[in-house]
């Protein structure tokens, strides 16, 4: 019987909540379709919780005011993405309501939930229902209705979890986007898991509360603190399959029952003729076999979670470097070239396929270095990289604003890790600013560029970003463009040919340029890039 909770219990419950949320991170990521389907709700909410737990761990007192302060600052500082910001806003209101108290009764907790609701609703002009906002609103209203205020906390949280999960189910019908994708709202479910963590924290039980969402039973005494990674894994493989839903009309319930035989943490999304299944299992093969029965397999992904776990430890033990390098480029050839030049991570991307900040962040997290240089090699990606550098505080990030791969290569050639930072940057800048770059590509539609009308399929060339000319033969166009740029100052000409160009064709171009300008050193490389026939650099 717990009628009162103090700072000590609040801290413990919050840590438990973080643990439960993190355990369901992947599942929430899968559910994320609103407002932008970028699959990061679980991660974003977890980051806000983790930052707060870090601060709680550093406290040397269990005083309620101190615990409240750590939660408030932590969730604010750790907030990432939309759901993270809303979550921090909820805790902001919640904590302001409890921070001056010595202990809390159920009445205070309900009032704090309502303050959380007010704070969350205040920060948006038109609140969208069917989201985490609805969750906190109805949770506050229903608990207020069901409790007088001096009941047992265990009972209270038990009811709060039931209410939360009910609301989660309802979100699907409130927001058309969710309904179309056949999912519930990820943020709302995240908040429900947080309430579940509070219940587990106060009751010391991990029993299944009667809720409408099926989960595997786990019987285990709660441990103190975050111990997710240390737990032995019941199911080893995180398996995801995507199936074209065209052979027979299998219902979601049938899929769930079938997949339920293989493991837990099941998420099923059925939308627009595609079935997506996520499950933790020991038999990924069986899951795939099952998928084949429903329709054509589009995609499969199997991760060994045990290895992921080991890798986390491994990278922690790896020696920390002074500088790390991330490069964005497209094409196998360029990947090899950049790796030879010392890049730690090469992210696939470029024109028309910009990597997300999350991709950059993932690469960043895998590098053990104090300072990480990012070479975006594309104007659009510079912005993402700079945004990452602003929000990331685990490492120092320096974005070298290279606009194309040729500049990226030039900058990396000048990369000398023995130099001090300022000299290094200066060197790289001088190098990549001094080169001239040429791109030879094709027009994707009829249009007018800089006064010249271009037909679809025409070969066109650019010097830097400026349109130069057009033609029919790629070698003619490349040759003419080089001639226009050439001056005595240039000593080296590098030609990177794309995946649609035969090596022999590139060799002919090399021969032609070399004959015309014997003083220049001409080299050809297999860049393997899409879209561009040739990417050329003059140094």
């Amino acid at each position: 019987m717990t009628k009162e909770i103090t700072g000590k219990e609040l801290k413990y419950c919050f840590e438990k909540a973080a643990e439960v949320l993190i355990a369901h991170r992947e599942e929430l990521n899968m559910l994320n379709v609103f407002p932008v389907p970028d699959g990061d709700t679980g991660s974003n909410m977890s980051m806000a919780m983790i930052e707060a737990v870090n601060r709680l761990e550093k406290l040397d007192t269990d005083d309620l005011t101190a615990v409240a302060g750590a939660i408030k600052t932590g969730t604010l500082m750790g907030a990432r993405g939309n759901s993270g910001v809303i979550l921090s806003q909820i805790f902001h209101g919640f904590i302001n309501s409890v921070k001056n108290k010595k202990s809390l009764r159920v009445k205070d907790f309900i009032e704090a939930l309502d303050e959380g609701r007010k704070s969350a609703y205040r920060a948006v002009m038109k609140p969208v229902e069917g989201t985490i906002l609805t969750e906190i609103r109805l949770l506050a209203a229903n608990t207020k209705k069901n409790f007088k205020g001096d009941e047992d906390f265990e009972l209270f949280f038990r009811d709060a979890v039931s209410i939360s999960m009910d609301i989660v189910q309802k979100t699907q019908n409130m927001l058309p986007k969710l309904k179309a994708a056949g999912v519930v709202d990820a943020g709302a479910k995240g908040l429900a898991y947080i309430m579940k963590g509070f219940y587990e924290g106060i009751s010391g039980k991990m029993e299944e509360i009667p809720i409408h969402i099926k989960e595997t039973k786990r019987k285990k005494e709660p441990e103190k603190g975050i111990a997710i990674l240390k737990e032995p894994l019941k199911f080893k493989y995180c398996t995801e399959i995507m199936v074209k839903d065209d052979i027979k009309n299998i219902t979601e319930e049938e899929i769930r029952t079938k997949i339920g035989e293989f493991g837990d943490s099941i998420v099923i999304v059925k939308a627009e003729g595609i079935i997506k299944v996520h499950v933790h299992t020991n038999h990924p093969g069986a899951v795939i076999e099952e998928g084949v029965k429903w329709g054509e397999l589009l995609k499969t992904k199997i991760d060994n979670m045990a290895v992921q776990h080991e890798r986390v430890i491994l990278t922690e033990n790896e020696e920390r470097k002074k500088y790390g390098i991330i490069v964005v480029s497209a094409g196998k050839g360029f990947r090899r070239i950049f790796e030879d030049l010392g890049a730690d991570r090469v992210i696939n991307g470029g024109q028309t396929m910009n990597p997300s900040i999350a991709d950059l962040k993932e690469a960043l997290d895998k590098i053990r270095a104090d300072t990480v240089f990012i070479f975006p090699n594309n104007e659009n990606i510079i912005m993402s990289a700079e945004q990452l550098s602003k929000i990331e505080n685990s490492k120092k990030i320096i974005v070298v604003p290279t606009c194309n791969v040729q500049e990226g290569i030039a900058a990396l050639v000048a990369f000398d890790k023995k130099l001090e930072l300022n000299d290094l940057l200066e060197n790289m800048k001088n190098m990549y600013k001094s080169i001239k770059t040429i791109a030879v590509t094709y027009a994707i539609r009829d249009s007018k560029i800089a006064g010249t009308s271009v037909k679809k399929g025409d070969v066109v060339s650019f010097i830097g970003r400026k349109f130069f000319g057009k033609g029919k033969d790629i070698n003619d166009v490349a040759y003419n463009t080089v001639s226009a740029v050439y001056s005595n100052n240039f000593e080296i000409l590098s030609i990177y040919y794309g995946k649609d160009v035969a090596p022999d064709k590139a060799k002919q171009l090399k021969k032609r340029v070399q004959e015309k300008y014997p003083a220049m050193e001409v080299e050809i490389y297999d860049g393997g890039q899409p879209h561009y026939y040739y990417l050329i650099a003059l140094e």
Partner: protein
Amino acid sequence: MIFQMEYGQVEIDKKAIISTIASILLETYGIVKMEPADASAFLKRLLKPDNDIEQGIKLVEMDDERQSMKIELYVEMEYGSKLQEVAKNVIHSVSYKLKELLGIHVERIDVYVVGLRMD
């Protein structure tokens, strides 16, 4: 913004783009108000005080050739929320939805936080 099609062209007017952005901002979490983007928006507000979301949206540059544009947003946020993160979400959400709804590629969005609500 003009889109060339096989048998003609589609033009999406500036006004339509601005009201689309306004409807996106209305539901974007963390923004509590828009502020006038420039002197003319400020004057307009004096004449028509209810037009208060669109006043803070400025299309700086439209490039028909590349079907892209640059946008400036003048916003007021809630004191105590994480401003950078809200701004990042705004940029993300507006660029994603403009692409999805209108097929327009946004090259750059600058968010100016010109006010904080403190109450």
